[in-house]
């Protein structure tokens, strides 16, 4: 009779081999504008693999002369969308890759992609601690995947999204966020509009600062509730948020960051 140990703990020879991460050719099956500058691109993939909320895909374009440009784009879709993946892509005016997506690609076109990628900036239902999500601009994309995953799993971890946009028209997933925020058990959604506010706006109207962070932190129980924080957006916004939260007493180990680089 085999011992329980032998049955449950495969030795090194039996350990599963990691699957190689291969480039594959996906088909663009849907393009949905979210704002003037951000669209959702749905890729159908021949070798689709389940992803975790917060992961990304690498996408690359190859010119006729062989020159290649590669970028990483966050997954917005919840993990249960089988066979396809929704990427949120902002059009960067001087970019090498995003203008091609926005100005050239049409439904039915093919693009090279590999993923899902990244094990660090990942949230899964059941992870301990209230969830504090802070996003700037298209940095909301992986945070949306987390909120969608939380909803799909009926996870009741308290969650709050603080989302900085320039104007109300720049808010990505606006209708879906409004709906999520009013659902029973849904996340608290807090907007700040930094450049222009609609008439009667009673939300925040400035860049994220320490006092704003203190206010939203209070709403999920304060630093003593030991929230798990995900911050995503332009590098300098992420830097300001991470430093602000550290100053408010959150341990750096509870703050996970994803910097997007310069603002467009």
């Amino acid at each position, binding site marked *: 009779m085999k011992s329980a140990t032998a049955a449950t703990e495969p030795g090194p020879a039996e350990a599963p081999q990691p699957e190689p991460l291969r480039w594959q050719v996906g088909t663009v099956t849907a393009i949905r504008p979210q704002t003037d500058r951000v669209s959702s691109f749905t890729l159908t993939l021949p070798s689709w693999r389940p992803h975790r909320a917060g992961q990304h895909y690498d996408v690359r374009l190859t010119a006729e002369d062989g020159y290649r440009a590669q970028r990483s784009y966050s997954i917005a879709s919840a993990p249960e969308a089988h066979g396809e993946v929704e990427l949120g892509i902002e059009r960067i005016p001087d970019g090498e890759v995003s203008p091609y997506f926005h100005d050239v690609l049409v439904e039915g076109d093919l693009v090279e992609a590999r993923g899902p990628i990244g094990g660090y900036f990942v949230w899964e239902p059941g992870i301990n601690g209230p969830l504090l999500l802070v996003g700037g601009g298209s940095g909301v994309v992986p945070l949306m995947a987390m909120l969608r995953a939380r909803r799909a799993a009926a996870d009741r971890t308290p969650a709050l999204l603080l989302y900085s946009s320039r104007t109300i028209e720049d808010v990505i997933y606006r209708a879906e966020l409004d709906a999520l925020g009013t659902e029973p058990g849904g996340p608290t959604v807090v907007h700040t509009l930094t450049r222009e506010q609609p008439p009667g706006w009673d939300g925040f109207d400035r860049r994220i600062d320490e006092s704003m962070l203190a206010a939203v932190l209070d709403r999920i129980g304060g630093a003593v509730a030991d929230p798990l924080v995900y911050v995503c957006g332009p590098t300098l916004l992420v*830097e300001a948020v991470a430093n602000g939260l550290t100053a408010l007493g959150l341990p750096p180990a509870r703050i996970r960051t994803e910097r997007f680089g310069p603002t467009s």
Partner: protein
Amino acid sequence: MRPAVIDDPLVLDANAVAGDLREIMGVEITTYVARCAHCGNRDALGTLRAWTHGPGIVLRCVICSEVVIRWVRHPDGPRVDMRGAAFLQPGGSPR
């Protein structure tokens, strides 16, 4: 120890180059704990700061800003310099 303040808008997290790292190493290593050989800080490799706009990729310590890992592409394959990592620990927990 607090992370060094970054004022360079081009800096990313090592998580952003997780695809290239996985291609080079064969496994997902951004969740491995890396110990900085310069200051001794331990944290998930995905937290390292990434400079990606030069001819090679440079990953620096969040605390002391010294180089932990860097690599360049070469026609014969990538060259990875890991002298700045005292160790990598699969499945380790930070700090």
